[in-house]
């Protein structure tokens, strides 16, 4: 029995011994890898270094009000081949090499022949290229085709097919509102809506495990992204692309005409504050271009357009009535050591006039002396400042664009702000303070809107896959910036400026508009007295005057040709914008006649016109013209008598030349050619004469039609 036990134990020990040996061997191998081969493997590990790299999400679109694309991302692809892909089968590669070479030479590039590609692929395969460039800038449809090539159709692992997705920001309307749409670049500050809404548009980047195959080359480890990126949302802006085009063209024409330095124009919807168009054009070495958002980023001394604000302050505080008389001393007045001079030739002839007239001819002396008289004594300057602040003129508008320049309104009697004895009168005419065009327009818009101040805005909706995520409603900054009576008086003055004042040359009998001219001296301090003085011409206003729909400001910096006054430089641009808005927006027109329909004169009726019966009947019905219809035949002729209109049948028979007189060319050609005639045409209009009489047999003749 002991032998049995011994035999068994011996065998157990043998197994135990073998297992321990095996364990030692395994561990020794691990030590060998770690210690003796360690450097080799660690180096290899470094070369295989991987990390998660961001996969950029598709950037959202920026759209105009009607959905047309202002900025969109176009995807394009780079295609590469990894010849050392893990699962690439050598046999398969060899078998499909010829067909791949053929596809590449035929569809991708003619830089190599089929044989050339074949050799190139074999050479790169032998070299173990992991990142061989097949093609750059591949479009999506091209990618779909290339994907199906032999070997490539096996995908990332087996086919070594690497697709790198890139995208390019594209602005289909190019320069239109370019600066406002903006951009985001790796270097430099983000600009415009792209910058302000960068997060919304940008979405969330995904992650993809990328492997380094050479110094600066990373290839995806897996075919798919590990974390899918979340695409950015789309922005729907308030920009109306047609109005934008109008504003841009008008501004550009004006800038060229006056050989100006730069200019800006903004068109705003009065009721909502929505910006319908915004243009900024500057002179560059490469021509006219949107390079800076002057409308938003540049606060300057506005000059006379600011008089509206000063006047509203005076009106609101009850200091003036429009028909008060005021001395303007023939347009010259001394304030302490400074002399204020008017620009209007009319001023020089007047010693005394009404407040209304003084405003209409933009008298500096009148505004300066009024403000000085009512706020210049007994430390009342603070009241004036307080009033301006109640118009919100001291605050930025909060427009959705980075870098809005804050306005500068001096604090009353503040030493830091350089307050002096002449500050008040000069502020009243738009100096010693700065505002941006948009800020000033916001004020004018409030005046047009009967005192209700709306916040200007550019984005009305944020969308995802065409569904709204967030709707942005118009925001009221201030329900009433001044008493309705004061606002109404200012409106009256602004209308007067256009009717009989500095902008009277711009008035039109088609509609009425209101506004104020401005001619600011840019460098009046530096170049005293008047030598080489530079100007900034502006016009701010709204239209139609009775029931304003749009407010608009135009600013032209340094006009050098054809005048420099606001009324002659910026005014015409404003007028052109307003004209075009009227021309394209039917809803702005007053009904032409609201009385009953006029009797139609017979000669205006479509007498003897010929056309398709149904078409004529539907046109006449649409125009609500009484007529006797007919139910016979395809073609009808209109017979208009003094008091009735009737339709008669025009017969077309086969094999016989028909009477096509009175038809449009389209109908006549259709009928005649279908009957087998050759047609030669001259003139324009409707068919007046036909060379072959109706009723003649058709034998393939050529018929001449004279149109008139």
């Amino acid at each position: 029995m002991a032998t049995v036990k011994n035999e068994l134990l011996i065998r157990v020990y043998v197994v135990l011994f073998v297992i321990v040996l095996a364990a030692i061997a395994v561990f020794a191998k691990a030590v060998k890898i770690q210690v003796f081969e360690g450097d080799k493997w660690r180096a290899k590990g470094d070369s295989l270094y991987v990390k998660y790299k961001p996969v950029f999400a598709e950037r959202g679109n920026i759209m105009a009000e009607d959905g047309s694309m202002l900025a969109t991302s176009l995807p394009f692809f780079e295609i590469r081949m990894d010849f050392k892909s893990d699962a690439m089968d050598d046999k398969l590669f060899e078998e499909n090499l010829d067909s791949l070479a053929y596809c590449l030479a035929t569809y991708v590039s003619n830089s190599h022949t089929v044989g050339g590609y074949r050799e190139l692929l074999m050479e790169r395969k032998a070299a173990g290229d992991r990142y061989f460039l097949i093609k750059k800038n591949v479009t999506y449809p091209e990618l779909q085709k290339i994907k199906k090539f032999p070997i490539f159709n096996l995908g990332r692992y087996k086919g070594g097919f690497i697709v790198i997705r890139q995208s390019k920001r594209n602005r289909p309307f190019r320069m239109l509102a370019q600066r406002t749409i903006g951009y985001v670049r790796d270097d430099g500050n983000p600009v415009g809506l792209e910058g302000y809404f960068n997060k919304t548009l940008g979405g969330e980047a995904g992650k993809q495990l990328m492997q380094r195959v050479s110094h600066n080359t990373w290839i995806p480890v897996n075919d798919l992204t590990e974390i899918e990126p979340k695409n950015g949302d789309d922005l729907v802006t308030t920009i109306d692309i047609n109005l934008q085009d109008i504003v841009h063209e008008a501004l550009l024409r004006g800038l060229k005409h006056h050989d100006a330095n730069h200019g800006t124009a903004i068109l705003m919807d009065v009721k909502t504050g929505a910006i319908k168009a915004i243009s900024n054009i500057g002179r560059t070495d490469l021509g006219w271009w949107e390079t800076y958002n002057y409308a938003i980023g540049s606060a300057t001394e506005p000059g006379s357009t600011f008089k509206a604000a000063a006047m509203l302050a005076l009106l609101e505080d009850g200091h003036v009535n429009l028909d008060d008389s005021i001395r303007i001393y023939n347009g010259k007045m001394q304030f302490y050591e400074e002399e204020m001079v008017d620009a209007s030739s009319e001023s020089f002839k007047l010693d005394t006039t009404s407040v209304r007239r003084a405003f209409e001819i933009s008298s500096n002396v009148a505004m300066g002396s009024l403000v000085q008289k009512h706020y210049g004594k007994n430390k009342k300057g603070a009241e004036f400042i307080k009033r301006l602040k109640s118009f919100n003129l001291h605050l930025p508008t909060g427009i959705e664009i980075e870098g809005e320049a804050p306005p500068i309104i001096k604090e009353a009697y503040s030493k830091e702000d350089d307050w002096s004895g002449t500050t008040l009168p000069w502020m009243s005419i738009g100096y010693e303070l700065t505002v941006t065009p948009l800020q000033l327009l916001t004020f004018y818009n409030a005046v047009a809107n009967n005192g209700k101040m709306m916040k200007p805005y550019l984005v009305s909706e944020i969308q995802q896959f065409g569904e709204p995520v967030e709707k942005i409603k118009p925001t009221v900054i201030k329900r009433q910036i001044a008493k309705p009576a004061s606002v109404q008086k200012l409106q009256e003055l602004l209308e007067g400026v256009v009717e009989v004042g500095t902008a009277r040359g711009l008035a039109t009998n088609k509609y009425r508009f209101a506004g104020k001219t401005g001619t600011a001296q840019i460098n009046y301090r530096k170049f005293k007295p008047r030598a080489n003085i530079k100007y900034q011409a502006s016009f701010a206003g709204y239209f139609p005057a009775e029931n304003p729909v749009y407010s608009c400001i135009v600013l032209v910096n340094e006009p050098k040709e054809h005048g420099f006054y606001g009324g002659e430089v910026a005014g015409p641009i404003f007028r052109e914008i307003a004209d075009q808005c009227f021309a394209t927006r039917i809803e702005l027109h007053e009904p032409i006649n609201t009385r009953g329909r006029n009797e139609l004169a017979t000669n205006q009726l479509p007498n003897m016109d010929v056309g398709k019966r149904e078409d004529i009947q539907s046109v006449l019905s649409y125009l609500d013209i009484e007529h006797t219809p007919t139910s016979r035949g395809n073609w009808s002729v209109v017979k208009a008598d003094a008091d009735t209109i009737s339709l008669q049948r025009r017969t077309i028979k086969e094999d016989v030349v028909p009477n096509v007189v009175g038809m449009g060319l389209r109908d006549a050609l259709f009928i005649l050619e279908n009957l087998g005639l050759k047609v030669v045409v001259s003139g324009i209009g409707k068919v007046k004469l036909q060379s072959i009489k109706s009723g003649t047999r058709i034998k393939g003749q050529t018929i001449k039609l004279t149109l008139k």
Partner: protein
Amino acid sequence: MSIGTKIYAQLGGDRAIWMIVAILVIISLLTVYSATGTIAYKERAGNTEFYLIKHFMFVIAGMFLTYLCYMMHYMQYSRMAPYLLLISIPLLVYTIGFGAEINEAKRWITVPIIDLTFQTSDFAKLALIIYIARAISSKQDYIKDFNSAFLPLIVPILIICGLIAPADLSSALLLFFTCVVMMFIGRVDLKFIGLLLFLGVVVFAFLIVLGSFFPEAIRVDTWISRVRDFMENSDGGYQIQQAKIAIADGGIFGAGPGNSMQRNFLPAPYSDFIYAVICEEYGLFGGFVILCLYVLLFFRCASMVTRSPKAFGAILALGLGLSIVFQALANIAVSVHMVPVTGLTLPMVSMGGTSFIFSSIAFGIILSVSRYIEKTT
């Protein structure tokens, strides 16, 4: 008295084996959590806890089964053995015919109702080992006889291994080898063992021939390519190179828990190549501890035989211990590039359903045996 010491005092059986189980499970949870980071990113949108929780559920279930098996008297297993073996044969046949295919191998069947995939070879392995242990111990008096002892032993071995082999050659070889060593320890004549090895080769050759007719059922191509990879490429294929980089990167004490880099490249870093991840995160030291734990387990199993040589329990514990330690060594040997790539898991450490569950059961049975052997001696 803390909870830990309370449990320790309560538990019977071999305390060293209990410790081994506890340490392996802790390492398992830590390493699986780290190693699943990449697939969590790929498949669970970065929800790294998903696999931890899933694995934790398996660990809880496994520990429960360990305890259950430990509480049962080991002689119960002896009574169950023939039935288990009878059940496993149709299961294996069904798997070959209709099993679920995962990673191009038909090794799983889906259990209805609970909808879990279940690797039938794990079940068959357990059944066969219990059966062989029972047969060896009951035939000890005439163990050197061919007809009455040897034949009844080899027939189930050849059938079961032959049925496992088509889809999972490495498991089949391992089981075959485990049984051979069990028979060797159980005093079967060396002549017969030589004969059995020869028979094994014959069955294997038969399978290869059969494989040329049924390439989908028998993965001969995979076997050849893996062996060729191993023989021809001294640096190893891509997977092996990644494992070596992991081991090299780990150094002596490792990069620390959760700091594995190679988990991103290793295929199945949470199961087949988990040893490489352990070496990367815990260094050679960690790798050494793991090896020692398995060897120690076998020491403890062997010591039961020395105490109670003829007993069914001792042979059973030894067989299960052998199976675990062989599988562990085979798994580790793959990572250090000593054998061709297999699909074997590291017992009690790798994440994974049935493998972990059956390892837990095996540990439970060993512990049950240890409890009664302690009582009787």
